[in-house]
């Protein structure tokens, strides 16, 4: 964190920008054609065409180790923090401050085409995905550069506004300041209600920070306010970041490459388990109906004349999109599908176990997509621990990442629902089966 390191780094980046003949010296990563990126020193072979490919007698690749590894990484990473116990109380209504380090280190080109571009692309995807999975949550973007921190978008639920604000921000100037940005985050998060989760996600690109006073005071107040700070480093791990993350129950991650950056961000879309004894509360929410009138009237949010809109049930003001907070009476306006969107975080489907069908000596068929093990010897198959139906690798990924429904369990649910009411393993489905559903199913 000394000035010396910073100067050396500046020189290095400067040189790399101008000395193109030698090739930039700081590029650490290679970009394989098949899309698997690694650090250069991790790559096994320089000349892959000289290496024999493992083949069996049919000329097919016998090992599916690689596929298995990818699958485990993708699925277990999401599940891993929680282990087997699925009944974890989560902060469903999230308030997230996204802090972006827009210092001049972003001009570094070790991520292609540059760190800045990669950051923009991935954060945009993240914001969209975040609101897709947590529609009733709120987000705010804080940027830090020139040793200052600035809030460029207030806590709100509109993804487009955040993305626009992020794109408009001028980047690549000066140094970041961890303390200033955390203080800004603190100032907006300490007023949100206690029942929601308060999170800070810091995307850090520099190796230095420029702080006005001791960070330990800030860490203490973060801890008091139950704010969880997580770091994603684009460069290298810093002790202070790791320390902050540890103290506040957050995570600290260093990215390997672009793909890994994306994965690490997407993991943050899942609501985290609550810290300590947080309060629960009944939150007042309005469920407005859409009305379409023949005469246009102005909406409160954009002050434009619109034909259709949602009328706040408490104060009667028209807003043009959901979910939002009524600007007059501050009632949160949602519709029932928005609540339903978050339910899959509460009722997760278990991880599937791999089926060794070669040893069982029989052919298996995926019940989701009908692909059979007869056709290719490479395919991996998995079985759901609850319903014991067989799924192929692609269905397994699809079910866990996009669908959040196990077709086999859905089939059997109907029969078990009546008999296993007190069964522990089925407790989740019963809650989902009888209570929540009755409420929202019929309007």
């Amino acid at each position: 964190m000394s000035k010396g390191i910073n100067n050396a780094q500046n020189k290095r980046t400067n040189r790399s920008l101008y000395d193109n003949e030698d090739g930039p010296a700081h590029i650490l990563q290679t970009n394989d054609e098949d899309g698997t990126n690694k650090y250069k020193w991790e790559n096994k072979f320089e000349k892959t065409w000289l290496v024999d490919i493992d083949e069996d007698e049919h000329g097919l690749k016998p090992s599916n180790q690689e596929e298995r590894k990818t699958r485990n990484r993708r699925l277990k990473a999401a599940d891993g923090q929680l282990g087997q116990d699925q009944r974890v109380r989560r902060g469903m209504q999230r308030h997230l401050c996204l802090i972006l380090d827009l210092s001049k280190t972003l001009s570094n080109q070790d991520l292609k085409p540059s760190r800045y571009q990669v950051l923009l692309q991935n954060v945009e995807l993240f914001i969209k995905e975040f609101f897709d999975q947590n529609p009733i949550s709120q987000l705010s973007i804080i940027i830090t550069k020139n040793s200052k921190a600035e809030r460029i978008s207030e806590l709100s639920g509109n993804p487009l506004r955040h993305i626009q604000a992020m794109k408009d921000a001028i980047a690549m100037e000066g140094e970041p300041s961890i303390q200033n940005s955390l203080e800004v985050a603190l100032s907006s998060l300490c007023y949100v209600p206690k029942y929601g989760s308060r999170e800070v996600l810091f995307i850090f690109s520099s190796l230095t920070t420029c702080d006005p006073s001791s960070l330990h005071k800030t860490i203490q107040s973060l801890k008091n306010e139950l704010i969880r700070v997580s770091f994603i480093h684009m460069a290298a791990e810093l002790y202070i970041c790791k320390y902050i993350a540890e103290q506040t129950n957050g995570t600290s991650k260093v990215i390997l490459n672009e793909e890994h950056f994306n994965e690490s961000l997407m993991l943050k879309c899942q609501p985290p388990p609550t810290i300590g004894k947080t309060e629960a509360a009944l939150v007042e929410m309005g469920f407005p109906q859409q009305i379409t009138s023949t005469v246009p009237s102005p909406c409160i949010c954009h002050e434009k004349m619109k034909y259709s809109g949602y009328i706040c049930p408490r104060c009667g003001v028209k807003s043009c999109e959901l979910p939002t907070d009524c600007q007059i009476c501050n009632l949160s306006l949602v519709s029932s599908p928005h609540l339903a969107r978050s339910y899959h975080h509460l009722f997760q489907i278990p991880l599937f176990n791999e089926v060794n069908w070669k040893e069982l000596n029989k052919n298996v068929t995926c019940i989701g997509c009908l692909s059979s093990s007869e056709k290719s010897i490479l395919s991996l198959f998995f079985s759901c621990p609850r319903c014991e139906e067989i799924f192929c690798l692609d269905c397994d990924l699809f079910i866990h990442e996009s669908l959040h429904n196990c077709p086999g369990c859905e089939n059997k649910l109907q029969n078990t629902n009546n008999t296993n009411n007190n069964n522990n393993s089925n407790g989740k489905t019963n809650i989902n089966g009888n209570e929540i559903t009755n409420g929202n199913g019929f309007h």
Partner: protein
Amino acid sequence: MNNEASAVLNEDDDTSLLVVILDCNVYSWGNREKSLQDAISGMNDDNNDDRYNGGIAIGNNINKRLANTSKTNYIGFNKFLEHFMVFVNAYLMLNQENQLGIICSKIGESSFVFPQTTVEQYQQEQEQLLQQQQLNENGEPLPPTANKTIQGQILDKLQKLDLEIKHEQSDVLSSSFSASMSMALCYINRIKRETPTIKPRILVFNISPDVSSQYISVMNCIFSSQKQSIPVDSCILSQLDSTFLQQASHLTSGIYLKPQKQELLSQYLLTTFLLDTLSRKSLAYPTLKSVDYRASCFCHKKIVDIGYVCSVCLSIFCGHSSSCSTCGTKFSLKIDLRKQSNINTNSTPLSTATTTSTVNNK
């Protein structure tokens, strides 16, 4: 929707994948047949009620009255199949690369009808066919059976369905719509991987009422298809509207249709559901006026404008209470900005909700 860009790219390629979900709920169709029978017999005499004891007893008078007024408006399963096969044929003729999947949701179980479940089954049937032909050749030369065509396969399977009632499931009367929807999405996911340019859509024929216990899984399916921009079209063959399908069609910008005169069902199907998503833009289609997304509370099932949502499990209540009846969480009634500086200074372990045991579902 933001699939404009991709649509322009694939303008030339208009092959589509249609996954049909047929509601083959025996009870619903049985009730339908019964009311039809009653309507016919009701003209002559009223003493024909003993034929269908397996069906659910509904107020016969109401049923008859409804059936009498709408005698020609509703059709039975056999008639429906005829109309459906016309539609399937037309769809397959529209483009030779069009692909089809048919899933039927029976009571408590869903299964594929059209792409055969396993290769083995397919082979078995082929063998049976061969055997039949040989026998026939020994006796009298007969023309090859209709089983060879796709249509034959589908019809064969669908007609067998009527017999597949298991006695163990007699207390469950609901169709497994969420399972068939999940299977359809998995299947589409696979076909899309094999031919990325294909345009998938889902068509649901529905006759049985919504099952509220499937709400979450159905909503998950809807969100998944919305994300992949797969339209979910729905054709309602019963008198009641289906809230699930209304939401599905509305959220995925599909078509929701409730045919008034089902005698003319094939015409409805051909004009409404035949064309792919690209051509639909230039045609006028029936639109849903409004879908009611208001929630109803869990405690009294009242529709609420302003509700109170549990911050832990997101269940909705119409008034304040001291604890959540779904997850059992105790609420702190003082919602103020009380400082908690004395409590929770050390890092605390992740709290697990130990509350689910208190749930009693009756």
